[in-house]
């Protein structure tokens, strides 16, 4: 498994071939503060995610039952290769372990890719953008005491689609985007949050997820078939099934696991094949967005009206890039700022930091315009105050996301670590010590009260109606 431990960035060991100039160079000239460890953006990411390998891998904070999924796959496949393959190779063909091996590699690779890929998280709006949107909403001429409308209607392929305003991310959600309450992120083309893979399934990792469940159903069916054949061959000649099971106990375990999982996995694969063919998401299907339940003539505006093209666009379309910058460095000045109000201070962009002194107009323009952006990547920036708005919970629509899950929800974990917006908790002592050493207690103080107040309220609401639904 590719899961390497979270590593602190050691200023002495800063790698030189970084695309951005390491901000620690700025420390030498800055006599006011002690030298700081340069932080990467993933360390101040506002969503509830965990990052590994210095920001390369992303996972939901609640990893759900991913270890169980992986464990079951490894155990079953391991038993298959140990107990069944030797017998079947001898009595049937040596293709069996080859096919099994290929399927196993596919399953594990796609599972890890589904779990550790950014599903299509939308970064939260900068304060400038949020203010601009607020201004536009208020300009609708609403002078009454009632809050202004927080939905916007757009026409997509002659179909009216309502865009909702996300109070956490401070923006109007693009079409097909939904806010996952477990990960606290808006995810593009949100399908569902899958506890089995420990991540949301969205635009960027849907193809991995689909390949995973399809190859898993092939693998499960294949192992089930092989185990049955194996036991049947052993039980030949009047020896009986019990004898066969005694000779090969591992096969019994495999039989049980495969028998109980093959139906749900096959069902899930079938369901998602239908979704792919009609270019729907689980979220839309469950909400009945395009099924015409409301009596109007609604059709899916995103469908290409051709099954083949739908499948190709979902599974073989261009791979969109990750919109969140995980591995970029925060500027050195950011670590020193005590509040997001210092927008006008020259918080320099990492790209232009070393060049501001030498460039002319353009450099000054860039530094001036990028400073507001950078101050918002700190958790003490305005986006963190979003959840305090009482309208937050309805707007985030937690129930559709929940009902779209394909497994058990851990309601108890909702009250977990909400006091720290930085989600780098890995349980390693080194990281905790390093966190204490981070010389910006000012970061923690303003943030914890606000987020701890709002976290449980939105999470509790979001976790009602938890249910185990292996099949949709």
């Amino acid at each position, binding site marked *: 498994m590719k899961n390497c431990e979270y590593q602190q960035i050691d200023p002495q060991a800063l790698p030189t071939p970084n695309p951005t100039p390491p901000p620690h160079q700025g420390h030498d000239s800055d006599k006011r503060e002690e030298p700081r460890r340069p932080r990467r953006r993933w360390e101040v990411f506002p969503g509830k995610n965990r990052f590994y390998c210095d920001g390369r891998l992303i996972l939901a904070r609640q990893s759900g039952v991913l270890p169980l999924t992986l464990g079951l796959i490894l155990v079953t496949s391991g038993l298959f290769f140990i107990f069944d393959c030797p017998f079947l190779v001898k009595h049937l063909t040596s293709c069996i372990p080859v096919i099994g091996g290929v399927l196993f590699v596919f399953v594990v690779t796609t599972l890890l890719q589904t779990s550790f890929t950014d599903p299509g998280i939308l970064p939260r709006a900068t304060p400038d953008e949020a203010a601009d949107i607020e201004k536009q909403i208020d300009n609708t001429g609403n002078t009454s005491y009632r809050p202004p409308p927080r939905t916007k209607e757009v026409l997509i392929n002659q179909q009216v689609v309502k865009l909702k305003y996300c109070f956490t991310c401070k923006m109007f959600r693009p079409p097909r985007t939904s806010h996952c309450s477990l990960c606290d992120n808006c995810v593009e083309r949100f399908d569902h949050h899958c506890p089995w893979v420990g991540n949301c399934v969205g635009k960027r990792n849907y193809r991995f997820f689909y390949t995973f469940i399809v190859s898993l159903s092939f693998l499960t069916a294949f192992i089930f078939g092989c185990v049955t054949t194996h036991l049947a061959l052993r039980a030949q000649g009047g020896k009986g099934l019990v004898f066969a099971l005694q000779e090969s106990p591992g096969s019994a375990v495999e039989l049980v696991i495969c028998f109980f999982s093959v139906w749900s996995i096959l069902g899930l694969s079938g369901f998602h094949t239908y979704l792919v063919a009609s270019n729907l998401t689980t979220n839309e299907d469950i909400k009945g967005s395009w099924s015409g339940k409301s009596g109007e003539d609604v059709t899916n505006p995103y469908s290409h009206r051709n099954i083949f093209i739908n499948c190709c666009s979902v599974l073989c379309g261009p791979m969109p*890039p990750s919109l969140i910058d995980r591995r970029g460095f925060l500027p050195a000045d950011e670590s020193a700022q005590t509040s997001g109000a210092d927008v006008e201070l020259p918080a320099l962009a990492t790209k232009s930091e070393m060049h501001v002194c030498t460039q002319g107009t353009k450099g000054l323009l860039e530094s001036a315009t990028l400073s507001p952006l950078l101050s918002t990547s700190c958790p003490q920036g305005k986006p963190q105050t979003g959840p305090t708005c009482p309208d937050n919970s309805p707007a985030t629509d937690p129930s559709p996301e929940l009902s779209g899950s394909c497994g058990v929800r851990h309601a108890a974990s909702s009250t977990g670590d909400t006091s720290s917006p930085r989600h780098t908790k890995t349980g390693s002592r080194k990281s905790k010590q390093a966190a204490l050493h981070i010389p910006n207690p000012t970061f923690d103080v303003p943030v914890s009260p606000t987020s701890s107040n709002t976290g449980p309220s939105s999470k509790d609401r979001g976790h009602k109606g938890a249910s185990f639904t292996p099949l949709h």
Partner: protein
Amino acid sequence: MAETHSLQDMRQQAAVAAKVFIQRDYANGTVCQFQTKFPSELETRIDKQQFEETVRTLNNLYAEAEKLGSQSYIEGCLACLTAYTVFLCMETHYEKVLKKIAKYIQEQNDKIYAPRGLLLTDPIERGLRVVSCALVSVAAKKYSLL
């Protein structure tokens, strides 16, 4: 340090007077397109045709990145056959076009927008939500030219 102080002053003087955000246009679905409507705040700074040309070119570039053509299908099928491990070593078509877009924006800024006191920000830095156009106050320009 005196030098740093004067630079800071200049930057503070070069504070952004206003920011204009060009939002996404969802008329064609979820493909990345931006509205070509000319914002009123830019009327005094740049002419409409120029601005709309820039946004239209950006839209075309994004359409090219997300195009469902034979190239993307081949790339997708190859990736599927290799259990998507090919994404770890290969730069995708989308990423290549994003680089082209970054270069285009920089070029536009250098040639057209910066001389008029405007600065376009690459939408990828804003999560492909908006094209941000910053208006820099004229007073700052005088300082910066010193």
